[in-house]
């Protein structure tokens, strides 16, 4: 079971969350200038790294708010969770949320 650190509610069990896939995706535009290949890339091609992945999570049975996370796809360790609209802290920086217990509170319990 993963322990996921919601930036609004604090650490909660995995079953309260839904993963929404890759974050920080920009819709290409204006649409009259977007090729089929660019649309395909936007719609269907995703980063699928074996390592750290930036992704969106939804606290579906908690505060029902979306947030971002940087998580390792091999260890499932969350390096950091941060609010929508904020930039992802690079490794070594402190967590975005002052109220979050720890930048690396998320993990496997």
């Amino acid at each position: 079971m993963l322990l996921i650190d919601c930036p609004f509610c604090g650490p909660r069990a995995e079953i309260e969350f839904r993963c929404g896939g890759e974050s920080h995706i920009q819709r290409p535009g204006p649409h009259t200038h977007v090729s089929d290949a660019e649309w395909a890339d936007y719609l269907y091609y995703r980063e699928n790294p074996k390592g750290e992945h930036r992704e969106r999570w939804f606290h579906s049975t908690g505060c029902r708010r979306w947030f971002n996370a940087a998580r390792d796809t091999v260890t499932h360790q969350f390096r950091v969770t941060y609010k929508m609209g904020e930039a992802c802290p690079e490794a070594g920086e402190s967590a975005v949320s002052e109220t979050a217990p720890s930048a690396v509170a998320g993990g496997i319990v």
Partner: protein
Amino acid sequence: MTRRYSALSLLREGLNGQRGWEPAWRDPTPKAHYDAIVIGGGGHGLATAYYLAKNHGLTNVALIERGWIGGGNTGRNTTIIRSNYFFPESAAFYEFSVQLYEKLTDELNYNIMFSQRGMWTLAHDRHGLEMARRSANAMLLNGIDAEFHDGPSVYANIPGLNPNPRFPILGGVNQPRGGSARHDAVAWGYARAASALGVDIIQNCEVQGFIIEGGQVRGVETSHGTIRSDRIGMAVAGHSSVLAAKAGLRLPISSYALQAFVSEPVKPCLDTVILSPATGTYLSQSDKGELVLGAGLDLYLSYAQRGNLPWMERAAAGVLELFPQFSRMRFLRQWAGIVDVVHDSTPIIGPTSVGGLYINGGWGTGGFKAVPAGGWCLAHVMATGQSHPLASAFGLERFESGAMIDEASASGIAH
């Protein structure tokens, strides 16, 4: 010296103290150049190597595997074989695969233990029932065996089902020719047959990079040195993105963990394969007596080869809803494989933007049943440069053209 397996060879070796058996496949040192290289020693890669040799006469072929053959998803799946699909393209492809499976034991001279015990999809509400009728009709229109059964008929055909479930069983679809095979035997049988035709099966050999000149692939850098070939096929489901990135390619694939379990072995009590979408369950009984259960995908990216606990609990609850009498059985093993999921739940077989580099992947949760046809079609496109008619709709270009084959919506498959 015993190379061909038969009742007579068993008897002879029995009397001979089992001293005459040979290794099932050779363990060669890689050559500097091959006519074709297949990356990935799972079912699809081994089948590709075999059909390259058998169907296309290409015997100067190397199969490169990072670990050991059959040690990836081929050894981690729940061994179900079926062709209960909706769209004509998928139905024709998977049906061809079932037909190849039916002849595989004889063809490979290796008992893959294909048991056509039937594959049931149960319906627990009005919508499930409508889906079941639609599914049965689609299968029959595609020329595939399908039977629609109402609730009493399901109970008559599957002894032991819970007579008073919380979610009533209103009906179901059976594909009588569906079933299960021994997954390791499929890998070993293909490996043995390919090796006998001259294919070099190279294990413990990791591909570290591709040699690409002017947009054309010329070989691979491996932990065993440089191996050159102008024709390379990759069949590394689960790690397709990781390997493709080494060739500078991006793929429309997301990797997730799919977990499965087996119970302790018990006497024969379930003689078919059951899928119940509403309760999130599928299960069968192995020839050893273990109940084989599958769970759903962990829906966050994962290369961990380890499933999560909530899905394990849900799968167990689903089984107990159908068979309360299994409640005191214990899980013996739990594992997960990494599946590569594409947006329309249809595989990718065909060329890439790098000349001479071909891909077989995107199988999602159902690659095992496709092993013979996937290998057949990848071998075809590698040998001829043209997509096989059965796989012509499965190219990467569909993500740009929009010609998707959305089987997740159409046949209700799990990914």
